[in-house]
């Protein structure tokens, strides 16, 4: 029935415009509501290609998952038409360039790879926090908005923890797109958010080198090679890729999900903070591992067991930001802060602690050597942060330190929280006061906020 619908037709009050794409699963049109100018996109399931198999189920999956997602990283859901009539999904038209456009220009400079990587990882983190896993990330399914934010499209293969998985065991073949599919998906596992990190690793590799790390296998048997395959080191293809970036990309491509970054938020954080990435042999290598090591990987793959998916996506390696005030603040408050951080870390498990302080920009006037003075200021703050964090007794790889700059301390912290998908902010405050920084942070920060006060 939908086969006959086309440009100029009306469906449930939506006017179909020009076709803008689609494939074997769906046809996609520009659209708008009658009497409205808001540009929309209408996705019609293809029912005309014989067997109503995968295309109907994936359409049904997207109809269920998309309305449950919100935020700037997914197209806003407008309406859906039932499968018993004309199955369609109307959604926001997302402006921007598909990531496939960037891939066409690859290899990209590392700064661009990193910038795009942070944007996509943040988008993936946002849907993971809403208990969904995309499971079909590829350049065609990502749009980069003019402002640089990534939007994820096509949730037809997605998994949502609160919905029955209509694709589970329906098809015995692996479900996904061959070059990007993770090893555990090849084996039919659809509940591990780290599968999206593997696909993201493939995308980063592609952006950085213009090559697909595992090619484009055309059979399930060839796809099984993913359980042990080791891609050519990106730096062997493009010498200008820094070691730390290769380390991050190859970590995403680990066959064992447990060895990938613990969450998309963590990946975004690592990409944004190269200095925190511990470089191992993985980052330095230029050639493929020895034949002996490759054989060892192959043997391991023969007994490949997918890592158990993490129990709760919300609890994945949260980022805890502590806004540390001036060191001359009262001793009592400092102690309360340290206690609050210790208790929160104990409750959060694998959390990463970020200690930050905000310093005012050192003015250009009034000093003979402003650069040096600013640097000295910066260093002084860093020393104080390190001293403060030492009492927490955390291993070095779980703590980072940041001296942010800005006249408005709250704005600087809020920017950092948004850019780095911080899960929890702890901030100290001398006394209850409705105009206080803590008050403003609690009102505006898109995360959990704990305000610490000393007992009086």
């Amino acid at each position, binding site marked *: 029935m939908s086969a006959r619908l086309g440009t100029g037709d009306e469906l449930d009050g939506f006017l179909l415009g020009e076709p803008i794409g689609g494939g074997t699963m769906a046809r996609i049109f520009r659209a708008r509501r009658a009497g409205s100018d808001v540009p929309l996109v209408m996705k019609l399931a293809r029912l005309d290609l014989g067997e109503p198999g995968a295309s109907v189920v994936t359409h049904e999956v997207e*109809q269920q998952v998309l309305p449950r997602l919100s935020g700037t990283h997914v197209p806003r859901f407008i309406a859906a038409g039932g499968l018993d009539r004309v199955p369609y999904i109307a959604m926001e038209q997302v402006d921007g360039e598909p990531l496939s456009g960037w891939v066409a220009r690859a290899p990209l400079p590392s700064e661009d790879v990193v910038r795009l990587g942070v944007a996509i990882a943040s988008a993936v983190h946002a849907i993971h926090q809403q208990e969904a896993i995309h499971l079909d990330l590829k350049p065609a399914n990502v749009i980069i908005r003019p402002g640089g934010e990534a939007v994820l499209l096509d949730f037809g293969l997605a998994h949502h923890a609160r919905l*029955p998985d209509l694709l589970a065991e329906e098809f015995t073949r692996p479900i996904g797109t061959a070059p990007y599919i993770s090893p555990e998906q090849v084996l039919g596992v659809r509940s591990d958010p780290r599968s999206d990190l593997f696909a993201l690793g493939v995308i980063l590799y592609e952006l950085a080198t213009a090559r697909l790390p595992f090619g484009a296998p055309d059979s399930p048997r060839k796809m099984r090679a993913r359980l042990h395959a080791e891609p050519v080191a990106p730096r062997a293809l493009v010498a200008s890729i820094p070691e730390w970036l290769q380390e991050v990309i190859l970590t995403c491509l680990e066959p064992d999900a447990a060895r990938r970054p613990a969450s998309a938020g963590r990946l975004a954080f690592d990409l944004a903070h190269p200095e925190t990435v511990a470089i191992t042999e993985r980052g330095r290598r230029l050639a493929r591992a020895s034949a002996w090591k490759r054989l060892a990987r192959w043997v391991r793959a023969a007994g490949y067991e997918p890592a158990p998916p993490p129990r709760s996506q919300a609890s994945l390696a949260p980022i805890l930001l502590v806004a540390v005030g001036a060191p001359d603040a009262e001793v009592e408050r400092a102690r309360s802060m340290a206690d609050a951080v210790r208790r929160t870390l104990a409750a959060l498990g694998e959390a990463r602690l970020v200690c930050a302080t905000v310093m005012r920009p050192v003015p250009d006037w009034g000093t003979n050597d402003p650069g040096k003075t600013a640097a000295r200021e910066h260093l002084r703050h860093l020393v104080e942060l390190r001293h403060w964090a030492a009492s927490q007794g955390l291993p070095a790889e779980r703590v980072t330190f940041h001296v942010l700059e800005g006249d408005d301390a709250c704005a600087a912290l809020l920017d950092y929280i948004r850019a780095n998908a911080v899960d929890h902010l702890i901030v100290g405050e001398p006394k209850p006061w409705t105009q206080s920084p803590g008050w403003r942070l609690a009102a505006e920060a898109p995360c959990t906020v704990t305000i610490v006060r000393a007992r009086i």
Partner: protein
Amino acid sequence: MRIALLADIHSNLEALAACLRHAQAAGAERFAFLGDLVGYGADPEAVLDIVMERASRGARVVLGNHDQAVAGHSTRNMNPAAERAVEWTRRQLRGDQAAFLAALPLTAREGDCFYVHASADAPQRWTYVSDSLRAAHSMDGARSPYTFGGHVHEQRLYFQGADRRPQPFQPTPGSAIPVPRHRRWLAIVGSCGQPRDGDTAACYAMLDAAEGELVFHRVPYDHARAAHKIRRAGLPERLASRLEHGR
């Protein structure tokens, strides 16, 4: 239209009242009681009065194995505690209440919904629908888009995939699940009056037939009071303590 589905109340007045209040607030327009109204708990009379009053206003009620035992049939296959509770319950009921139980049908059909206490393919055998295969048999017996049952006390949803084999799904309480009617669905709504999954809160489910959405609910209730009444009635201690622990 919203239909509240309650199973395995087991004479627990506090749990029933809490679920009915919750369902009313959530906009329930119809009610279905999926068997085992009595047995185990201390308030068979009060529970039956409520259910009979709802039935007189159109609520659908089907027979459970405990109801059948109390109504005068055998207590075969029951554990000693359940058997004692059945015999105690029999002595509490008025004549009209016993007659109400004795007259209950094994199954009922209402629109797209099929109601049964155990399995729709052989309701009188009291089979536990506890896996995909048994869910398949029950769905085949019901021949309806929606099959609702109890008997197994834990909430679970089975849905038919493309290969027609039902898949089990563990619902998250309070989270709406789309259940379009072109697929077959079987929901075990969970026990209202004797939860056994380690959570003391009462279970029920609500179908929004127009929207094609199903929500499983957990409702906290005064389980201490229900347990206290069981002890006061001299019923087996185990029946009281399991309400306090939800197992």
